[in-house]
């Protein structure tokens, strides 16, 4: 039995089909990459997994349980955390309070929440800015805060939506490092990323979609060599 599986997921908005029958399996402990050109339906997939959208049809199975159509807060409680591509910091709360708020999904007392938050902040290297208001963080800090907040909900599966976009090379390295350490702690990661060398180096397996349908899946090497993927990214002329 797979740890996490999506089965023939479909999402239509009015006449537009954003995701059209995507299926994949993710094994526990993997870093699973999701790639595809802009508008190919990656974020829509994440939104269906995390409960923001109810799929038009298809199943989302997590630890042998169907979770499609559940509310986002329920899915969070089940152990699936996510970040947002367009970061959503709780702006007028401090970085620490952001993470404390997330910690309350697992603990009820202020003391425990604070301890959990401190640990996470430390893990993510946000301790120096813990008293800063989230809205005044620079973009790299906000991306990191997204991850920290999601981690504070103690997920077994973490969905990372373009957490590397907009980072400079140094920040990129430390972000990749952070993602690896998250996996070492036993959290399975599904990651959407546009920066190819990031996703190719970090992922164990990659699933490529275009126009809402699967075009390839395999190891980074296999996917990089796949004709359909090259066409999707560079256009047919280059293929």
């Amino acid at each position: 039995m797979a740890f996490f599986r999506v089965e023939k997921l479909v999402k239509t908005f009015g006449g537009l089909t954003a995701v059209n029958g995507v299926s994949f399996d993710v094994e526990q402990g993997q870093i699973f990459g999701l790639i595809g050109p802009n508008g190919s339906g990656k974020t829509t997939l994440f939104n269906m997994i995390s409960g923001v959208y109810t799929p038009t049809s298809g199943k989302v199975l997590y630890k042998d349980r169907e979770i499609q159509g559940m509310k986002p807060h329920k899915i969070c409680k089940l152990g699936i955390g996510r970040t947002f591509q367009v970061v959503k910091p709780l702006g007028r709360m401090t970085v620490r309070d952001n993470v404390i708020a997330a910690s309350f999904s697992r603990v009820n007392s202020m003391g425990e929440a604070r301890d959990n938050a401190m640990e996470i902040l430390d893990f993510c290297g946000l301790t120096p800015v813990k008293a800063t208001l989230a809205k005044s963080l620079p973009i790299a800090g906000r991306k990191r805060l997204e991850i920290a907040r999601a981690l504070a909900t103690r997920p077994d599966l973490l969905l990372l939506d373009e957490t590397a976009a907009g980072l400079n090379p140094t920040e990129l390295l430390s972000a990749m490092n952070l993602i690896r350490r998250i996996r070492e702690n036993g959290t399975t990661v599904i990651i959407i990323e546009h920066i190819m060398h990031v996703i190719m180096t970090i992922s164990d397996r990659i699933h490529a979609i275009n126009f809402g349908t699967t075009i390839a899946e395999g190891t980074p090497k296999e996917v990089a060599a796949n004709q359909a993927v090259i066409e999707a990214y560079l256009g047919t002329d280059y293929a």
Partner: protein
Amino acid sequence: MKAAGSKMKKNLFPLLLLAGLALLPLVLESNYFLHLMILFLLWVVIGSSWNLLAGFTGQVSFGHAAFFGVGAYTAGLLFHHLQISPWWGMALGGVFAFLVGLPFGAICFPLRGAYFALASLALGEGIRHIATIAESFTGGMVGIMIMPTFVSKVPYYYITLFLASLSVLSIQLIMRSKPGYYFISIREDQDAAASLGVNTTLYKNVSLAISAFWTGMAGALYMNYMGFIDPHVVFSLHDYSVMAILVAIVGGVGTVYGPTVGAFIMVAFQELFRTGFFGLFAFLGKATGVAAVTALGDAVKKAHVLGFGILVIVVILYLPNGVVGDWEKIKRNVFRIHPAK
């Protein structure tokens, strides 16, 4: 060390204030001032309740008069129909306001955007009409009159002080615990909050329930204290729904003590105008013999609500986060105090 010290100071000030308020009737024998203080404390309750829902949870209500009025009518009707002491009505007033809030929240909160604000306005107005029409039950426009329990204002003062402290304290405690963090997350970003495990609909309802409860208690106390209510008094959009908002705005939306400060400013400001700056104009008029000064004094007296309205506009323009929220700005620009570097 420094942080601990400032925290101590932060907690000390409200305690000192509370002690001062508790001792006030011992030194102040004027019924007039006690009445003003009772009004001030009632507004502390109403403003703080509104602030919990709007300032902290981000759900702006234009219908808090509904909860206030339901509380007042609970106390009044219990006495009117069943001869139950209106003090019992106080406990129940909060509960009934909460019961009115519940289905209302259940309907509005799943909808996003301005719906809550819009529907709350309709709720307040709707209940007012119902109270007016259901004459056989509520007495309609004639209203309800009860004999006050106490002749002296002192007991009322202490009861109101107790209610005000309790409501502010409860809000302070809530804001330092899980629900408080959840309320602010909802205000800041509903999607983010949901992704962090916050049941946004549930917690909005929790916030509404607490807010409605305290406002209903205030309404029931009002019935006990004033001895008379009618639909236009207690369900008034402008006197309660809007005033609750203004009190919080002037003091500072989204701060625990903002509404308290706002309530004080509102009551003091209105009274200052109503009395012509405590008779200053009349005195000056007499002293100088200039009729214009006396006339000005009379004009000021009539303009007491106007004065507060203008204050509100000035505050929104220049202190958009209220006196408490923009305190640093006030210190900088008005008192010329600059933080030590």
